[in-house]
Every structure is written in structure tokens, then in C-alpha cells.
């Protein structure tokens, strides 16, 4: 059996996760329970959904820094408008339209103005955060039978774990994300764009449309993530989720996606999210470690993966070069 070297980072992530979980369980047997497993899904649902959008963006060679602010905006917007008497179903729809349009506009600017995504989405980040503050600086409680029904829905598993609605939504987003990336034209275009924009253009990839669609998707998923966050805390708070975009980027990179684009798997991001959640859970179970160790552990993992990706790139380049010289020698 031959393993595709491009999937090596993903396999490394998976191995790290399994080994880390096993180590955690050997120290705290209670970590092998449905409760902890389901908490990992529920507590990271909003981050996971946003990270799928970030995976697409990074696969295309871009970056989206606006995610955390868009989540905060969504939560405040939802809490305030529902509080004002609009039906939540309408609000949720409205919010998704708004955030998708916001993402599309950023994608359009990136393409038309030939601006680096970093700068455009940085502006988007300030804009969305500012808009959230404009609506309300207070933490706004959200209470509506429709919202309560959504957020309190769960399946009880043996052992006391709860498979919540938001956890299921995250899994669904990952499944759809994987299908889109692997099985659709749009997905193929993203990989082509991230691999090499010039050759993608020569191959007939509609660069502009794809760019707009990528950032629109990221905006949509950030909006969805914001809705999940709102359900998760049943409140809107403009100071919430500061820096979530960075956690999402970390999850994507730990998940084995090349930060320069072109290679990676949506499933890898899922494992990346779980690893971050696992570290946090371990620290709480231990109860004596400073929670800042989470950041240190993630930093170390990031360095490790960037180094791993570099080595793989070099070795494949060298492999290709030696094969080429071998082929030339044969003629």
C-alpha cells in the first residue's frame, strides 16, 4: 500500500490525536466517557463550523481574519432583533444572508482590487466588530421558545453524554464540506487556485467567481457559527469570540492543510479541532495547570506541523527531480 505524501500531515494529526487521547485516558479514566466525547463536539461546535470555512479559504491560498468578529456580530444581532420581537427563524435567515453577502463583498474586493486577503479581511474584522459594538456593548440575553427548543434539543447517550443539536450541525457541516471539497467542481477549483493561480487560470478556472464564492462560503459558515455560538450561550455579546479566527487557523494547520494552499483535507480540520479541545479538557481535568498551557501546546504543535509540511514538500520535490533526471538518463 502506498500512502499519498500529501496526506501524510493528516495521518500524523490523526496519530497524534489517538496517542494523546490514549495518554489522557491512562491518567484520567473518566476521559473515556460519552460525556467527554460529546463535550468535545458540543463545546467546539461553533469553532468547528467556522474552521470548515477557514479550511476552504486556506486551501485556496487565502486567509479570513473576520471570522471571530462576524460570530460576535451575528450573536449580538440575533439577540437584539429577537429581543425586539422578530421571529427567530426570520432573524436566522436574515443573518445568514447578511454574513454571506459580507463574505462575498470581501471576496469581490480581493479579486477586483487585487488586494491581499489579509488586508481586506482585517478591515472586515474591524468592521464587523465595530458593528457589533454599535448594536450593543452589553451582554444581551436571548430567550424565545423557538431558540430554547433548538438549543435544548439533544440525544442522551449511555454514560450521560449528550449529542446536542449544535454538535450534530457541526458534524453535518464537516460532511458537506468534505463532499464539496472532494466531489464538486467548486472544490476542485479551490484546490487548483491554491496550488497555482496562474495555471488554474490557464486551465480555465473562473478565478473571480471562485474567489467570491470561497469568501461567501466562509462568511456563510461564520454566520452559521455565530448562530451556534448564540444557541450555545443563549446570549449576544459584542466582546465574545475575540481571536477565534486564530484558533480556526491553528485547527486547519494542525489538521494538515498547507498554509500556502493547494493541499489538505476538511477531515483534518476536524481532528485539529478535537486536538485543541482535548488539550483544554486535559488541563481542566488536571486542575492545577495554568490554562495558558493550551496556547503553549498549540504553539508547539503548529511549529511541528509547519516543519513537517516543509520536509514533505522538500522530499517530494527532490523525489520528482531525481525521477526526472532518471527519466532523462534513460532516453
Amino acid at each position, binding site marked *: 500500500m502506498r500512502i499519498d505524501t500529501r496526506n501524510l500531515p493528516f495521518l500524523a494529526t490523526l496519530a497524534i490525536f489517538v496517542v494523546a487521547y490514549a495518554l489522557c485516558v491512562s491518567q484520567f479514566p473518566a476521559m473515556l466517557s460519552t*460525556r*467527554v466525547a460529546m463535550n468535545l463536539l458540543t463545546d467546539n461546535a461553533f469553532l468547528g463550523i467556522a474552521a470548515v470555512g477557514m479550511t476552504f479559504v486556506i486551501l485556496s491560498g487565502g486567509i479570513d481574519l473576520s471570522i471571530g468578529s462576524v460570530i460576535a456580530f451575528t450573536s449580538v444581532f440575533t439577540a437584539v432583533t429577537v429581543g425586539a420581537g422578530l421571529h427567530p427563524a426570520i432573524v436566522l435567515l436574515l443573518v445568514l444572508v447578511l454574513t454571506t453577502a459580507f463574505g462575498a463583498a470581501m471576496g469581490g474586493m480581493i479579486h477586483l482590487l487585487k488586494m491581499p486577503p489579509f488586508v481586506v479581511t482585517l478591515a472586515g474584522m474591524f468592521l464587523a466588530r465595530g458593528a457589533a459594538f454599535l448594536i450593543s456593548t452589553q*451582554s444581551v440575553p436571548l430567550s424565545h421558545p423557538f431558540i430554547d427548543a433548538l438549543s*435544548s434539543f439533544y440525544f442522551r447517550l449511555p*454514560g450521560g453524554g449528550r449529542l446536542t443539536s449544535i454538535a450534530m450541525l457541526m458534524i453535518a457541516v464537516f460532511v458537506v464540506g468534505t463532499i464539496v471539497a472532494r466531489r464538486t467542481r467548486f472544490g476542485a477549483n479551490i484546490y487548483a487556485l491554491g496550488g497555482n493561480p496562474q495555471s488554474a487560470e490557464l486551465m480555465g478556472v473562473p478565478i473571480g467567481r471562485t474567489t467570491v464564492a470561497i469568501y461567501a462560503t466562509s462568511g456563510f459558515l461564520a454566520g452559521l457559527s455565530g448562530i451556534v455560538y448564540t444557541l450555545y450561550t443563549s446570549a449576544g455579546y459584542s466582546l465574545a469570540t475575540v481571536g477565534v479566527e486564530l484558533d480556526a487557523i491553528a485547527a486547519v494547520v494542525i489538521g494538515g492543510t498547507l498554509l500556502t494552499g493547494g493541499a489538505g483535507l476538511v477531515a483534518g480540520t476536524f481532528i485539529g479541532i478535537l486536538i485543541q479541545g482535548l488539550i483544554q479538557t486535559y488541563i*481542566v481535568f488536571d486542575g492545577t495547570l495554568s490554562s495558558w498551557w493550551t496556547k503553549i501546546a498549540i504553539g508547539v504543535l503548529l511549529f511541528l506541523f509547519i516543519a513537517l509540511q516543509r520536509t514533505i514538500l522538500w522530499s517530494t520535490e527532490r523525489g520528482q527531480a531525481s525521477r526526472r533526471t532518471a527519466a532523462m538518463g534513460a532516453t
Partner: protein
Amino acid sequence: MKLRRLAVLSAAFATLAATTVAASAITVGFSQIGSESGWRAAETTVTRQEAEKRGIDLKFADAQQKQENQIKAIRSFIAQGIDAILVAPVVATGWDAVLEEAKDADIPVILLDRTVDSDKSLYLTAVTSDLVHEGKVAGEWLAKDVGTNPCNVVELQGTTGSSPAIDRKKGFEEGIAGHDNIKITRSQTGDFTRTKGKEVMESFLRAEDGGKNICAVYAHNDDMAVGAIQAIKEAGLKPGTDIKVVSIDAVPDIFLAMEAGEANATVELTPNMAGPAFDALKAYLDSGTEPPKWIQTESKLYTQSDDPKAVYEAKKDLGY
């Protein structure tokens, strides 16, 4: 095949969950907001000390000011099957789901220092100070200290709109009510900081004839009072004698000022919220005694006659 494997796995999970419940000493999880202020760091230190004193195994989780981190920590505590949870909630909203989960798992939750807007049945009790009462204690001290002499007070408020600023102002006004000789002549925000406290005090001194018309300064926290003391000294007056200084919080530095005779009184916002919480918890776990839904901590008054040097020594290593 896959289905059977799943069934076996979930069965394994279930037995594991059932066998890990056994416990000996009490384990309590504490979800702290962060370490944004000296007072909060002291609260963490004191909570650890109080737990150790009682032989409680304390699991500590710092949320780095993020609610989602607090919710995660509480969920992990529940999954761990610990005996009780202490939370200092970062915001008032959004706790229903996780508190309900704790209740479902029969784990009592005690709120420290701040409250939430959830239903009262979702937590065992809340241990907090009464901000209005703190201001009132400060006001009453001043009223008693000046007696019937006329006294013009300038007030350094906390951050505009914050609940400590609103409540400590209200409480002080209640404390001096009925004493017509005491008047608040100027009141401005010093943002709870030392530098702003000093700046605002300087402008008060200039406006009030170099400070001749000021009899006392009331600061909503000690940090602003320390700034004000600086300003008074620089204006050539003696803080503590020419202008009385009264404030709230009882951080170590104000005791140094009291020792030097430059501050007159402070009202303690005790960092020991965990002590009363642990006591209530023990009574609840041992004999099922339901504590009241609100446990008010003592707002102790300290003056120059309370051996400020000793208090300073006791407080200086708490992490303020």
C-alpha cells in the same frame, strides 16, 4: 459489523462511566474568570488556601476572560464527576444550559462574587459582597468621624456606568443621609485607576481654592485614593489630616498609606468568597441543609487604629 463495534464501544463507555464515580475526599472545581485585576488574583489565592485548609481537592480553571472557556470548564468538571463547582461568571447571561446540565448530574453550583440571570433553582447559592452596603459603611464612617463639623466631600467615581460605581455612590449617599453638615461638592470619574484618580484630584484641588474648601475625598476604590493622596501631597497639603481620605477595597497599598497617616479608612471587599461558599457546601453535602440563595460577605471597615502594618503584611502575598 460497524454497528456491532459501535455497540461494544458505547457499552464500554457506559461501564467506565459507572465505575469512575467512586470518590473519597471532596473534589471541587473552580472556574475563575481570569486574572485581570489584583483583587481577582487574590481571590484565586485565597480560594486555594481555603480549600487546602479544609482538605478539599481544588481543580482550578482560568477562563482567560472568555465565557466559552468557562462553559467548557464546567462541562469538563461535570464529566469528571466532581462533587461541586464554584463559578465566578464573566457575564450574567447564557448559563442556563450548562447549569441545567450540572443540576441534572446532581452537582451543586455556587456562584462567587458575581451573579447570573438564570433561574435561582439552577444554583445552590451565590456568595457576593453588597456594593451598596460597602459605600454605606464608608459614608457612615465619615459621618461619625466629622461629627457636627461642616464637611465638603469630593468624590472619585469608578468607571462610568459600571455597577460598582453606581452602587458605591448610592451607598455612600445613604451613609451620609441625614447629616446636612456633609455635602458632596464635586464628583467625577477616575476610572478606577491610580493615574486618573490623581489627575481628577488635581483638578478638584485647583477648582476648590487649592484644596482649602475640601474636607474629605471619597474614592470608589483604593487605587484612585492612592492617586489622590499623591495629588494632595503635591499641592502642599497633608492627606489624612488636611483632607481626609476614605475608600473601598482594602488592597495592601492603602494600608501602607494608613500606616503613614495619609489615608483614614477603607472598606474591605473581601477576596475570601470561597470560605463561606465551602462552609455552605459542607453543610449541604453533610446534612442536606439548603443555604440561603444569597450569602453576603462582610464589608469590614479598617481605620488607622486597626494596625495597618499587620494587615499589610497579611495581605501583601495574596497576589494583589
